[in-house]
């Protein structure tokens, strides 16, 4: 499985993260997105006419939408991440996969504007980003009241993986995450999952070292 990848892209990171969590091996093919603009080249457009990343290639199959790539990787190597096979769950997971597009179009765009100077209506992006975070905060708070720690239930699914990176990286685009305690708890749970990997801007949880043992003079 080849992932055409850019290390700073939250949408590429989602795929790397899910692959790490499910044990799926990926061959990473680095795309010189910035500063080289390789994704706009004719050669890259042969692979993906839309000129976007990530792109997943597995044999003859080529997928260019991150929701589709996540679904494929989960179906291949971690079906639990699709959620249980019920109409409600399928609907909920698909709902959050689609919602993640709104995060990319708001928070993601604000971030590439602020960091890589890509053109955007920055105030509109930030307003839309704040609205998305408020929706996410409400949804997570309701889940928590029902005893669930994740977007689509008691265990993490693609819904969480799809929304997590942009929620974490919002400050990169000048959008504060301070007002959202439920989002903070949720991102901490995801960062604590076995096999979790980081990306620039999303740091791992550092293990708390045990308290130093009392030294001479302190019994």
């Amino acid at each position: 499985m080849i992932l055409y990848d850019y290390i700073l892209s939250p949408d590429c990171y989602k795929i790397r993260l899910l692959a790490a969590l499910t044990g799926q091996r990926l061959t990473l093919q680095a795309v010189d997105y910035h500063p080289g603009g390789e994704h706009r080249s004719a050669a890259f457009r042969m692979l993906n006419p839309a000129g976007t990343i990530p792109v997943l290639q597995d044999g003859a199959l080529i997928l260019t939408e991150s929701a589709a790539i996540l679904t494929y990787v989960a179906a291949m190597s971690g079906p639990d991440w699709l959620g249980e096979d019920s109409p409600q769950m399928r609907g909920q997971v698909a709902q959050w996969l689609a919602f993640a597009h709104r995060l990319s179009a708001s928070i993601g765009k604000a971030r590439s504007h602020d960091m890589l100077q890509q053109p955007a209506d920055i105030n509109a992006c930030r307003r839309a980003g704040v609205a998305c975070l408020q929706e996410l905060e409400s949804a997570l708070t309701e889940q928590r009241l029902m005893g669930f720690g994740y977007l689509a239930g008691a265990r993490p699914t693609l819904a969480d993986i799809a929304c997590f990176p942009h929620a974490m990286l919002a400050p990169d685009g000048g959008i504060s995450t301070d007002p959202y305690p439920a989002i903070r708890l949720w991102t901490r749970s995801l960062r604590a999952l076995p096999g979790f990997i980081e990306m620039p801007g999303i740091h791992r949880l550092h293990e708390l070292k045990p308290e130093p043992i009392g030294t001479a003079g302190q019994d």
Partner: protein
Amino acid sequence: MSGDPILDEWYPVALVSQLGPLGRDTRLLGQPIRVYWGTDHQPQVSDANGRALPVTCRYGHVWTCPGTPSRPLFDIPEADQPGRRLVDVGVVRVKCSPLRAVENFLDIAHFPFVHTDILGAEPHTEVGRYDVQIRDEVDEVWATKVQFYQPQAAKSAAGGITTEYMYRVPAPTVAVLYKTCPPRPGEWDVITLFVQPLEQDLCEVWPWMALFDDTTSLTDLIHFQQTIFVQDRSILENQLPRLLPLDPGMEIPTRADMTSIAYRRWLKRRGYSFGAQLVAA
């Protein structure tokens, strides 16, 4: 000379290889400037009044000076050494003082915590004693004999090694790092941070490298350096006070901060205050 120590410095304002036909409208020291291709097919820079500013193209970047250059652009002789790969890493904008960006680049102690498993790892957190000087003959800050254990010091490093570093500040918004070159013992890899001060608390950072590495793809080299720098970005944007204090105050430096102390002292001595705070923090 304009006599203003801030205006008379050279600043990076564009990558030559990325300057498109439309040019680049940007800012320098709080003022708008424009970088564009002149009729002689050389990059030109002009200020808001259309006045042409001095231009030097070197190390992959377009450099300009809004005043009268007090000296030529600093020299990195390694840039002309045969066999090195010159890597334009591209720009990253950071909402921080340009001086904070330089100071962070000079710091080693954060490696295990911010660049975990790449430039450092617990429990190898100790920064050993190293030498720092302000070299009066060249008017630069130098830190030498810096040693640190690194799990993956460079893209070309196979495993953990104790890396030796030298740091050099040849201009107030430029830091140059020389580090052990895994495939070529005896030579130094050169990694620089060229900082364009947009405002006192906003900058664009242009990392650039001159490496001995014949095997790693150019894109992988770029992504390695972007990874490192963007790991720093969120930290830099949250540092307080936002401007770099040049006077000792509430901060208590440790031995590992000797380079930073020398850098701040050198800035103060030169009267370089853009992005600095002169009242003790």
